[in-house]
Each structure stands twice: as C-alpha cells, then as structure tokens.
C-alpha cells in the first residue's frame, strides 16, 4: 500500500481496518462523527425550519389542550383554593379525626370568606362531584353566613343545616381538600372511598361506567368484524374490476363520506323506525305480523347498523390499496400447483391482505371506540357508548375532571390494544395506502 499517504480516503480505511475501538477520523484528524454532523447540519436546520409551522400548530392546538384536559383528571383545586383554612386543618390531622373547635372555626371562616367572594358555588360543585346532593348545602349555608358568622360555630352551622354533622360529608371534604386526587379515576371505574378512605364499589344502581366501557369495546369489536365481513368482498371486487367500473364502484363506496351526517342519520330513521320502510316491507311480505314490528333504531341495533355503515369505507380503503398490489399470478401459481380455489384464497391470497386488514381493523376500532354523534342520535339508551357519557360530563353536568378521567382511561385502553397489536402482528406490517 504505497499510496496510503496520498489517498485522503485511505486514512479512514486504515483506521477502520486497524483498532476497532478507536473512533474514526477524517484525513486531517478530526473525528468523523463530528465532521459528518457539521456537513449535514445546514440541511438539517433547513428541514427543521420547514416543519416548524406544523410543529407549532400541533403544539398549540393539540398537545397543550389535551395535556391541560388530562391534567384536570387528577387535579382540581375548586375546594382547596377557596377553603384554605379547613384544608390546612385536614392536612394536619389524621384521617378519621373528629372535627374539633379549631376545625369548625376554620370551616366557618372559609365558608364566610368564599361566600363573600362568591366562590361558594365552585366549592359546592367540587364536593358535589364526590358526594352527590351536597351542592345546595354549601350554597344555602353560604347565603346565610355571607354577612358574618358568630361563635359557637358548630352550633350555628348545625342550626343552619343538620347535615354539617354528617361524618360522610367530613370524609368527603377531607378527600377533596387536596388539589391532586385519584378519585375521578376511581369514579370512572365505579369505585369510591368510604368514610375511612377504603376503596369500594359504588351502590349497584349507580354502577354505569364499567358497563359502558365493556359495551363500547364489545360493540366496537362487533362493528369492526361486521365491516370486515361486508368490506372484504367489495374491496376484492374493487381491486380486480377494470379501472372504469372500479372507479364507479369506488364513488359508491365513498358516497357516505360526502353525505351530511344528519342526512344519513335521518335516512336511517326513515328506514329503520317501527313505522319505517323495512318494517313495512317485512309486514307486507308476511314475515312478521303487524303487531310484532321490529325495534331497529333508538337501541343497540341502531347504533350497530349506522356505525357499521359509516365506518365501512375505513375498512374498504386500506384493504383495497393492499389488494391492488397483490399480483393475480400468486393465486394462479397456487392453482397450478394443485390448490383448490378455497385453499389458494386461504393460504396465499388472504395472508397477503393482512397488512390492509390490520390497518382497516385498527382504524375502524379506534374510530368506533371514540364515536359520539351516531350513538347519540340513533342509539337510544341501550346504544349509548362511553363517549356519550364523556360528552354529558362536558356539556351538562360540567364535571370536566370526570370527563377527562374517562377520556384518559379510554385513551389508555386504546394504547394497550395498540401495544398488543404490535406484539401480535407488528405495527410495521400496517399498510394504510
């Protein structure tokens, strides 16, 4: 190797072939890694500046609001910020301590102060989340003590309302006296704390969230399966028809996308209601008697039918895009090798559609889990999903912390499913288009 000194690249090669532990250097002795980084830094900076607007947009409109919303699920200072004295007393004493004179004094002072500042409603609302029916206790007491309150505080407060002596109320106030709490999550899975702080199930007639979670996942799974059964043959047809015909069919598949949700839902009502088209036809055909008209809307059946229809394109499109790339000669090869058409489908064609099926199933399932409008419109009470409960907490009960906790659990569950999918199938096998 006589020309080693002349060739600038030779330095690199010799180092590389020599001691493996020594970092590589360029011809003039600078570390190769740093030289590479410097030579590419301009291009990298430019690329970063190009994506900066999008990054800023996502941070402002997505990351920050979602983060703030999720924070509400474990942080609520509606009580602690407005009732500082009694919160301090709760912090100093053990759980289960009987309220002493200092406690009653602190409570009276806080009630008077927050009533004066017109914050007593916020306090009542916060306690009401954990112990329903207590908001009016706070507001009515607040009205009476706004002008001032005289000792003995315990007796005065009890005179205003006997309920102030309820140990359950005191336990609840202790619970809500810290801004950070896991209680919204407990409530989301139908759990609560008793007076001693032990976690227990809520009364049977109040258990609703777990059932709704199960229903949401079960219905989403069922809808995913239905879209697969209905969508697979259509996707196959789309992928194998000549271009002109398949374009027409594709428009029919996409038509639901372009139609207003309200129009679609209204047409479902026209078709499915008890005096609707389908029932009329069934009665006319004599399949069912006039008195046994089927209830197909405003219940689970309505939710399933309408959501399957709406989500069908999300299954068809990824399947179609994968099927279009499968060369027909694979199935021909299988047939020539002696496989019946069913075996060729099962062993050769179907396995190759799995990336599209996985992507479609993920899309449909995740969309279905979070679907809100359709169940709200056609679901009746038995077709409501967890997202309808989240919406209710957002818009009517205004318990945003509860809504946030439910949403966080939903997100967590979907992430767990995604992780499972990755373990079983592998996310890099997904093909969305």
């Amino acid at each position: 190797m006589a020309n080693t000194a002349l060739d600038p690249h030779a330095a690199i090669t010799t180092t590389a072939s020599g001691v493996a532990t020594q970092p590589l250097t360029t011809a003039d002795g600078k570390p190769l890694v740093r030289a590479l980084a410097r030579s590419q830094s301009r291009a990298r900076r430019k690329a970063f500046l190009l994506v900066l607007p999008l990054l800023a947009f996502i941070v402002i409109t997505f990351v920050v609001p979602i983060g703030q919303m999720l924070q509400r699920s474990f942080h609520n200072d509606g009580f602690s910020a407005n009732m500082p004295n009694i919160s301090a007393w709760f912090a100093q004493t053990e759980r289960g301590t009987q309220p002493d004179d200092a406690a009653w004094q602190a409570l009276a002072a806080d009630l008077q102060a927050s009533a004066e500042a017109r914050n007593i409603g916020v306090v009542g609302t916060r306690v009401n989340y954990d112990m329903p029916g207590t908001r009016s206790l706070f507001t009515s007491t607040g009205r009476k003590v706004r002008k001032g309150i005289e000792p003995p505080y315990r007796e005065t407060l009890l005179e205003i309302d006997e309920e102030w002596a309820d140990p359950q109320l005191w336990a609840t106030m202790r619970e809500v006296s810290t801004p950070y709490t896991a209680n919204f999550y407990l409530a989301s899975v139908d759990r609560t704390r008793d007076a001693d702080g032990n976690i227990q199930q809520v009364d049977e007639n109040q258990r609703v969230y777990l059932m709704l979670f199960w229903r949401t996942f079960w219905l989403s799974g069922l809808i995913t399966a239905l879209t697969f059964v209905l969508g697979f043959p259509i996707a196959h047809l789309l992928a194998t028809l000549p271009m002109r015909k398949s374009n027409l069919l594709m428009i029919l598949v996409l038509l639901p996308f372009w139609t207003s949700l309200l129009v679609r839902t209204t047409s479902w009502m026209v078709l499915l209601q008890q005096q609707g088209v389908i029932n009329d036809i069934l009665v006319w055909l004599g399949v069912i008697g006039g008195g046994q008209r089927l209830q197909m809307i405003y219940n689970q059946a309505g939710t399933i039918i309408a959501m399957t229809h709406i989500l069908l394109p999300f299954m068809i499109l990824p399947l179609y895009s994968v099927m279009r790339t499968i060369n027909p000669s694979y199935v021909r090869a299988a047939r020539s090798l002696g496989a019946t058409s069913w075996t060729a489908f099962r062993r050769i064609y179907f396995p190759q559609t799995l990336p599209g099926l996985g992507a479609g199933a993920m899309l449909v399932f995740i969309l279905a889990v979070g679907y809100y409008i359709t169940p709200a419109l056609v679901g009746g009470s038995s077709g409501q999903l967890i997202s309808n409960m989240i919406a209710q907490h957002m818009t009517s009960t205004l318990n945003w912390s509860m809504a946030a906790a439910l949403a966080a659990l939903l997100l967590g569950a979907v992430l767990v499913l995604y992780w499972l999918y990755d373990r079983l199938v592998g996310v890099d096998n997904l093909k969305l288009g």
Partner: protein
Amino acid sequence: MLDDRHGEAFVAFEHVQKSYDGQTLVVKDLNLSIGKGEFVTMLGPSGSGKTTCLMMLAGFETATHGEIRLDGKPINQVPPHKRGIGMVFQNYALFPHMTVGENLSFPLEVRGMPRDERETRVKRALDMVQMGKFINRRPAQLSGGQQQRIALARALVFDPQLVLMDEPLGALDKQLREHMQFEIKHLHEQLGITVVYVTHDQGEALTMSDRVAVFNDGRIQQLAPPAELYERPQNSFVAGFIGENNALAGTIEQLDGEKALVRLDDGGLIDATAVNIREKGQRTTVSIRPERVEFKPEMMPHGAHTIEAQVIEVIYMGDILRARLRVAGSENFVMKMRNTIGQTHLHAGQSVRIGWHPEDARALDPV
C-alpha cells in the same frame, strides 16, 4: 424429435379459437401437437396469442372454440388444480409470505403428502437447482436468478409430466439468462419432462427448443426445429422475425419446379428457391441471410446470377465484418464476412458484384 403425427401427441390443440371480447379473435384456428418429452417454444411478438395459448393449456383461460387434450384426455372442463401441470411465471410468483422451503412444500401439502416425504422431496428439488442452502430464506432475500431457480424447483417438485414456462428469463440480465437457458435445457433432458416455453426472444427459442412455433396474428406461422426455422423460413414474417435478413422485392421471371428466376425492381436478375409462390409474374420478396451473401466469384456456384452492389460502410465487429451495401435501390442490404486472415477488406464507395447459392435465396410472399 418425437413425431406426433402417429396419434401419440401428449399435448394437442385442435382448431382452438379464443376471443376475449366477442369482436376479434386473439387465437385463430390453432392446431398444435406436442410429443412426450419434447421441448416446444412458442415464439412471437407481443399480442401474437402465444401467452393466451399457454394460459388455455394451464386452465386460466377457456378456449372459445376447439379442444385441448392432455395425454389423450380433453381438458377443456378440467380446473387448473386438477391438471397437474407445473408452471413457471414471468415474475416467478413465489409466495412472499412463505420461506423457500414452504413455497416448495405447498404443492405437496395440498396433495396431502406426509411430512417426511415432503421434506425429502423439497430437499431433492432444491439440490437439483443448487439452492439447498436457501431453504429458510424468504423470496425477497434472494436475487432474481435465485428466485428463478426456486420457481423452477417449485414447478418441478411434484413431478409434473408437463411444465409450462411463461417468459421465465425475461427479468434476468444477459449473462445470467444464457446460463439459465442451459440449466433449464439440462433439467429437461435429465428429467424427461415435456416443456412448453413462451418467449419473445428468438435467441432463447433457438438455443433451447426441439421445435419452435412462430406465432403472429393469432396463428402459427411455422412450426419447425430451430435449424430449419432459420435456414428454411416458410414465409416473409418468419424470415424477418428470426435472425437478420435481407429482403429484395421483385417479380417472378421464370419458374421451374423449385428453381425461380426473379427480376428485381431495378432490372437485375437473381436466382432463388420458390417457397410459397405458385406462378410466373407473381410479386415476391426474396429473403437472403447476410452471412450467405458472397462477393468473391470463386465462392459462388457455377452459372449463378450476380448483381451490382456498392459498399456504403464496413463495420468492424470483432468476429465478423459487417458491410452495408446499396443493392437494387435499397441501402439496407447487409453482408457479413468472417474476420479471418487473408479476408479481402472492402472499403466504402467500392463496387462489387454479389451473388449466392440459389438455395439460400428464398422467394416468399410479398411483404
């Protein structure tokens, strides 16, 4: 090779016609008999109907009219998986989600063969194409030539009597293609199978086949062994399609059995062998191979007619010298000379008289 005219055809097409749209015929009245153990190539330009014929034989297309027989039995109604025909596809069609071993095992599995027998067979087939080490690879991890070998092994692993190959070497580079041609040829001889091979590459067809069927316009233009096809083309299409060819247009001046005298359009007179012309005064195209053209009087047969030619250029090609001549008003007349010691060197502008053995000039249908 094996002659089939004694009713022993292994594969037979009888008056087969095929139409896709009901308007035009892609295959027009095809008659073809292939003997057992024969290597027959269907050669033709794209759209000539050769692949359609192969697909009808494999069972992926149905004949619109006519009968196809395999080993004496009509197979028009037999589904592809019951025909027991091995097939190698243009893009190999190796199943991408299976390993090489699973690909080869597939035809044996669907035949319900027990596991240990499958394993022996797969191993034997892989060794046959020297790919034994690759049994656990996926097709995507193999090069084009390796995939080609696996496709070949898969088509042979279940011992079919008939193997169809649809332009199997089309995607390979030249060197590998030539190597694979020999390998396929040797496998054919070694296993004694019948092969129907489709290609548009005439070199491939001539190298490998026992007989070549030249397709054009939905018909077999000529069915003959390679040497005959090259030396005795039956019509102008075959003469022009196979190898390099000089075509001279003229009129029949004299006709005496096979011997014909042709008056070229510029007045020159040449000897030719009549092939598919019938009478005096008919228009004809005379076809002569460039390497059969002579310009040295001592090499021409006695009494042969010669015509005037002008050298336009001489191209040095190593093993041969290639001269482009102006003959009878055409500037595309080519003459090939072997590059030997003592070869007369022509130069541009020179005038020579050229001629040929009458057998080498074939008077065919006018183009």
